[in-house]
């Protein structure tokens, strides 16, 4: 790899002090550190050796954990497409058409996001940080498959600037960046991110009786009409679409990466084994949603409330949000006790928004953003408790 090093060395003087492009040093440095672990050494004093883990590796672990969701998402986009258009197709064809739809979204998210990030690094003169590696893949996965590319670009720019860079970059943000992107589209272009957008059709027409409704919109409709939700589900145009098993496996319409609870659980296993994601948050989100589901079961005023509580764990984006969004270490609660409270409340609020507020069929996005804002407050009380405990021990 000497030639790459030489190539970098030969352009280096241009980016250093006195060079003609010295403003763009962060860009040079950002690229070099992708290929090479930097030659920095420990300081004169303090620890003379350092752990082999760095933030790049940590972030990359999350990307690996997302791959099952990504691949399944590609296949599912194709599966839903052929199902809706009534064409028989092989798994490979399904996967390819999904990839054809999904890859442009990923490219746009990364290209636009990284350009924004690089621009900010140059203006603010701080090193290129790794946060966007994960955000760039999370954004496509929380979008509906039929999303226009310009909206992806706009949402990405908005999220990177407003959710992250104005606070000072990776590690300083209050809100989860990828969810901010989705929330932006959700409120700015509601017609394109809800309703019949969950199946990609292209120029094909749908089969008779087709409806792109997700199970959550069934719930919302049932609440409004006072009809029986579970019976409505049985009358879906495709028999068995919303059985517990297919909801768990994820063969249902929805955002690209979020449909499969199974794939999210594989991702969760990777995050937990590597210690990158907090198992406390993941477990407590599921626990909170289930508890709230049971509570609604007990009330059972309408048929959505009466839906079995375990359904809440597999429908919508709860699993995806719990595993990949709620565990974002920067925007989550940072104390260990705080994580339990934070996760549990996310689960509870998700189910409340789903069931009680028919204007918002899915609650996980708003629940996580809401708890992101409240996480410092939870931590504040945990820290205060720690101070009190220590004070009471002090024998002065």
């Amino acid at each position, binding site marked *: 790899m000497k030639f790459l090093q030489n190539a970098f060395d030969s352009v280096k003087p241009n980016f250093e002090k006195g060079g003609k492009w010295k403003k763009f040093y962060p860009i040079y440095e950002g690229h070099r550190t992708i290929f090479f672990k*930097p030659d920095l050494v420990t300081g004169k004093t*303090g620890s003379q050796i*350092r752990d082999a883990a760095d933030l790049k590796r940590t972030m990359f672990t999350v990307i690996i954990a997302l791959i099952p969701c990504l691949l399944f998402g590609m296949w599912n986009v194709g599966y839903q497409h052929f199902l809706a258009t009534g064409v028989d197709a092989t798994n490979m064809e399904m996967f390819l058409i999904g990839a054809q739809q999904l890859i442009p979204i990923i490219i746009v998210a990364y290209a636009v996001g990284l350009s924004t990030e690089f621009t900010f690094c140059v203006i603010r003169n701080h090193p290129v940080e790794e946060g966007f590696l994960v955000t760039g893949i999370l954004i496509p996965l929380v979008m509906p498959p039929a999303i226009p590319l310009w909206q992806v670009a706009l949402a990405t720019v908005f999220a990177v600037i407003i959710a992250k860079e104005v606070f000072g970059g990776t590690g300083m943000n209050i809100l989860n960046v990828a969810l901010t992107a989705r929330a932006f589209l959700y409120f700015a272009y509601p017609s394109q991110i809800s309703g019949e957008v969950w199946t990609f059709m292209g120029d094909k027409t749908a089969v008779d009786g087709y409806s792109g409704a997700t199970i959550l919109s069934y719930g919302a409709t049932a609440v409004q009409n006072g009809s029986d939700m579970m019976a409505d589900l049985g009358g879906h145009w495709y028999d068995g679409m919303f059985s517990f098993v297919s909801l768990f496996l994820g063969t249902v319409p929805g955002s690209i990466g979020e449909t499969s609870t199974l794939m999210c659980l594989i991702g969760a296993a990777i995050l937990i084994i590597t210690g990158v994601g907090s198992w406390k948050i993941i477990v407590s989100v599921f626990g909170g949603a289930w508890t709230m589901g049971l509570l609604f079961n007990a009330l059972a005023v309408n048929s959505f409330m009466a839906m079995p509580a375990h359904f809440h764990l597999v429908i919508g984006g709860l699993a995806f949000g719990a595993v990949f969004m709620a565990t974002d270490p920067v925007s989550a609660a940072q*104390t260990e006790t705080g994580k339990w409270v934070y996760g549990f409340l996310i689960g509870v609020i998700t189910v409340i928004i789903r069931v009680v507020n028919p204007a918002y069929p899915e609650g996980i996005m708003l629940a996580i953003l809401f708890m992101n804002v409240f996480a410092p407050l939870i*931590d504040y009380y945990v820290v205060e408790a720690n101070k009190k405990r220590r004070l009471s021990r002090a024998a002065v």
Partner: protein
Amino acid sequence: MLTGRNAGKDGYLSYFHHQVTAIPEGDQEEFMGWLLPSSKKLSFHRSLGLLSFLSRGKERVVDTNTNGEHRQFVISGAFEDVVPMDILPTYLFKSIVANDYDEMEALGIYELVEEDVALCEFIDVSKNEIQSLLREGIEMVRNS
């Protein structure tokens, strides 16, 4: 090694030094060093490709490379695992960065010296110089 001074090639020792350790200098780049899996690298974490947790007893060569660049505090929950006291290290360090005297005292800066947080500095994914930061904080409350 965890709390030490780099004496350098022509360095000297003083009255208080009682141990000398020679380790290789890590001032060279490593191709894809942040990504490739390895069981030779010593790590407290289990992030992708860091396999040292599978063979904890094995001897490893460590050098002075920082294994990454400085970043903001991102990961939570790791420092608490390597500090035996009932102290919240991340909050203490952040209060030092913010020059918040009351917070530093309340979070227990008087109970610590550099060596107590040496492991925090070693395992820190964001490569902060935590021991000098703590000393800065101690000096701050001392001189206030």
